[in-house]
């Protein structure tokens, strides 16, 4: 097949037949100043655009959109492009490799080191909202929490590690995703039971055929279920 398609090819294409769908905001200063530099040099974009073919002689940018914006600002008629295949995965990984999106790790299974590095990355960002979060503590508490059952990142806000509800926990979504396991019905670990809501605990109690649980407080429910 590779023999019969342009995939993998470096091609010199008219800017006009390439569509850029990138909405991310790029600094106008960076674009204009880079365009000037490009014009002052040979005018060749040595770092290529990454495009996919969407129809005959129609292409769409999937990576290095910045170069598209610069080429446009520099008034280039043609740009050098790498032709990629049109799969979703290719688009995703290309944007990650181009530094345009942040890769995520699976928090359900990640190691404590991975969690630590991810938090370090977030805290080191210039516009971070996580200032003051103690990375070592947060990483350790997240690691030890029953995160394999988490449906979302909210339980982190209950770990007392400075990551509070709202934009702080939201910021974590940039680097973490979850593939939660379903919680077994016979779970007795009070630490895990404590992370559940009262309603969830009652459901569990019903499944285990307890009676008279409906008026119990959360603490008592945990107590009942952990026996």
């Amino acid at each position: 097949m590779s023999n019969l398609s342009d995939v993998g090819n470096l091609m010199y294409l008219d800017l006009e037949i390439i569509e850029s769908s990138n909405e991310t905001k790029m600094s106008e200063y960076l674009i204009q100043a880079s365009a000037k530099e490009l014009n002052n040099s040979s005018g060749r974009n040595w770092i290529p655009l990454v495009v996919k073919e969407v129809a005959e002689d129609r292409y769409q940018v999937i990576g290095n959109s910045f170069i598209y914006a610069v080429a446009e600002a520099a008034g280039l008629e043609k740009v050098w492009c790498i032709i990629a295949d049109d799969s979703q995965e290719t688009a995703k990984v290309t944007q990650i490799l181009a530094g345009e999106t942040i890769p995520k790790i699976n928090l359900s299974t990640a190691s404590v080191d991975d969690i630590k590095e991810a938090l370090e990355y977030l805290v080191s960002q210039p516009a971070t909202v996580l200032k003051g979060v103690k990375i070592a503590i947060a990483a350790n508490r997240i690691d030890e929490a029953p995160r394999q059952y988490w449906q979302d990142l909210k339980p982190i806000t209950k770990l007392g590690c400075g990551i509070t509800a709202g934009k702080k926990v939201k910021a974590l979504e940039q680097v973490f995703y979850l593939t939660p396991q379903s919680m077994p019905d016979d779970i007795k670990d009070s630490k895990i039971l404590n992370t559940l809501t009262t309603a969830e605990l009652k459901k569990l109690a019903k499944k285990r055929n307890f009676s008279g649980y409906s008026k119990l407080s959360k603490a008592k429910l945990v107590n009942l279920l952990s026996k």
Partner: protein
Amino acid sequence: MVFTIEQETLQLSSELEEQLVEDLKNLPENAPEAIVDNNFISTSFLNALGFGLQDRVPEFKTGKGTKAVDYGLRFSKDNDLFLHTQANPHVLIELKGRDINLEYNSNSYKTTFKQLKGYLLSSNCKSAHWGIITNSKHIQLFRKHGKVIFPATPCLEISPENIVDITYKIKKKIEETSRALTVAVYNNKGGVGKTTTVINLAATLTLHKKKVLVVDFDPNQKDLTDSLNINPAEYKFYHCLKDKKDLVDLKQVICPYTKTFKGGKTITFDVIPVDNELAAIDEDQIRTEISFHSLRKKLASVKYDYDYILIDSPPNWKFHSISAVYAADVVLIPTKHNNIRSLQNAAKTIKQYLPEIQQVRQEKTQGLEWGAISLPIFFNGEIISPAARVNAKKAITEIIKKAKVETKIDLTPFFFPRHKPGSNTSIFELSNSAHIANSAFNKLPAVYRYKVVYDYYSQLAKEYFLQ
């Protein structure tokens, strides 16, 4: 710059669409032909294709004995109702019941296709450009151009979900019948007379009053351009090919090749010659600017201007030959009976290269175009002794046997087109003439100079193309 890909808008009226889906849904699982016809084809399918009652003749007499095809169709004009004249059909439909399996390559599919082919080639159907086989579960559209019949769509599986779309697309194809048949003349082996075939076939078809365009797509050798002594026009083919914005009109690069006969009669066919830039550029560079589909796309812009577009291609399987075959409806493969490699390469083209091309073409057109098929091979211009003929046929029989074992592809029809049980293994032979070879020095197609050469190529044209 942002643009959107044009969405094809369906042009069937919503009533017709609903009827089509409804009728299809209501067909019993094993409906026999009469019911498929009565409850689906005649009630909604033909209407949806745009053929009213005046435009159809059921049980159309094909002229092949007393045999009739299920439907002959043609759009009637004011004073020319097809129903009344019953002449010059545009489309033939061979209908089957749902109890007959028309899945691609099933036995009954093959028989039905053969049946349709026979009808399309019979005397009352010369005007037919299209043939359809369907049993309301599968449908396939075939194009007929002169004598050549090739699939215009794959054999499509019909469902209530896709019937509207399929019908619309078939309708569109039928309404936009292109005038040209695009033929790539190709063999992976050199020295089998590709260029000679292209030039003389073009001249012959022109003498038969066909409008012909010849494309020299072998820029390394540019034999065709040189043997006709053509100087590229001001606009270069190379610039046209690399123009992905459709700004350079292909017509600007076309050069006429005119022959004036004694007595002042002139005839002309057109040529797209190799220009010096296209000749100089190497494959790596060409692939930075031109795609495999570029030639096909450019030629599509003149497909209503010519009867035949013949493409000369280089003896390899690289950019130029792939582009040529990708652009073609059919591939004509010259071979030499005494050159076993040329026969093996023909087999390789048919069982390996063409399926690859077809796959890409089908993917790129969402399964609506089939891609190039091969015409049967022919022996090109050598004197063949009876013993040599026997040897060549032995070699071919070996090749066919091997292909059947290895790839399950039956090459018989491509080598022995007249093969029937009881075995007819005749292969078309283009007779040898010293004049053909010598003509290269005269910058003139041999058929224009020598009556006997014209006769030879006329036979070739009639064997393969002219009806």
